[in-house]
């Protein structure tokens, strides 16, 4: 069993919000190349992330605060 799965289970599986655990998922293709004596080797992988907040309202407050701070910092 990998470390990640152990942590996942030990930490109490997932956050549950209002009786329904909530997850937001996005994914992306990931391309990379390796060049050796035999030529160029191309690889395609897939990446995904799943965000699981314990409290959606608290999360949205944190999101606004992080975005606003960064927009101020970068003069956007």
């Amino acid at each position, binding site marked *: 069993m990998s470390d990640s799965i152990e942590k996942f289970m030990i930490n109490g599986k*997932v956050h549950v919000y209002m009786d329904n655990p909530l997850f937001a*998922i*996005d994914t992306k293709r990931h391309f*990379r190349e390796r060049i050796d004596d035999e030529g160029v080797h191309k690889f395609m992988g897939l*990446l*995904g*992330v799943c*965000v*699981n907040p314990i409290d959606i309202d608290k999360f949205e407050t944190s999101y606004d605060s*992080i975005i606003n701070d960064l927009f101020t910092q970068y003069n956007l």
Partner: protein
Amino acid sequence: MVYKSYDIAKLFKKDFERKYKSFLIGFSRNVLNLDSVKFTFFFTEINVKHIEDGKINIFGKYGGPTIEVGVEKFMNLISGYYEVICAWKIHQITSIRNAIFMVDGIDALYPSKAWDELIRSNHVKIHYKGDQINPLLSTSDILIKFLEQFLKERYSPLNESRIEKVLSYDGKVNMDNIFIKYIGNPDLDHIKPSENYRMDFNDIQDYIQRPIIFVGLGDLKGQKQIFEELPVYEKLLKTAIGLNASVRFFDPSIDAKLIGKYKELDYFIPMSPRAEEYYELIKRTGCNVERLELE
């Protein structure tokens, strides 16, 4: 407002690359350190050495014919519904039930064992334009952009330790709430398309986030891109945030199967005389749709 990674990239003008990367790092470090959120990152690469003849058998449900495809074609196929595969993996690891899995517009969903198992005991919600409307989907979009951006900076095999190195950012991110999972060869039977059939709106209507705000433009090419740069688009997104709605640009050849076909009301914003005609036609056919004015 809610931003997707592409919107943020457009805001940087001078010294774009350095500042944009720095923004992605700043956002990701802050979000990943929130102790009230758990994050699971997934990665998939298929190891050809462990597959007979380097080919994967797909389709074949209900005794239908199977076909063999190479890894590249297989990866392209599953990339169209990789969100479903990630959600199924969460379900498989945790045996979770009644969870809501929000995804941002799936456009090439094939039937699979993963889909069947996922929807049996959980709820999938497809949000169109979700990464510009929903802060959770926006966060997923920015995080995955951050990870991909930093992984591609140098050649390195895609594995758990490489991903952990990017995410932990030299120990500045607490990894206690972050999990990394491989999906690949052992999961092929679940993740492969089980039927040679791309699911359409008739199949997925129950999984779409409603209401949907349809924006009717005209028939000119490039209108969508122009519209997205106008102040009215920001108004539209604010309205969608308020309604927790999905947003779609109305394409009669695709959306006729979707608009006003559900018990929950849909909205239509006609932005041209042609779109007005479509709206009148749709209304006359009894679809459950109302005109929406942007304040």
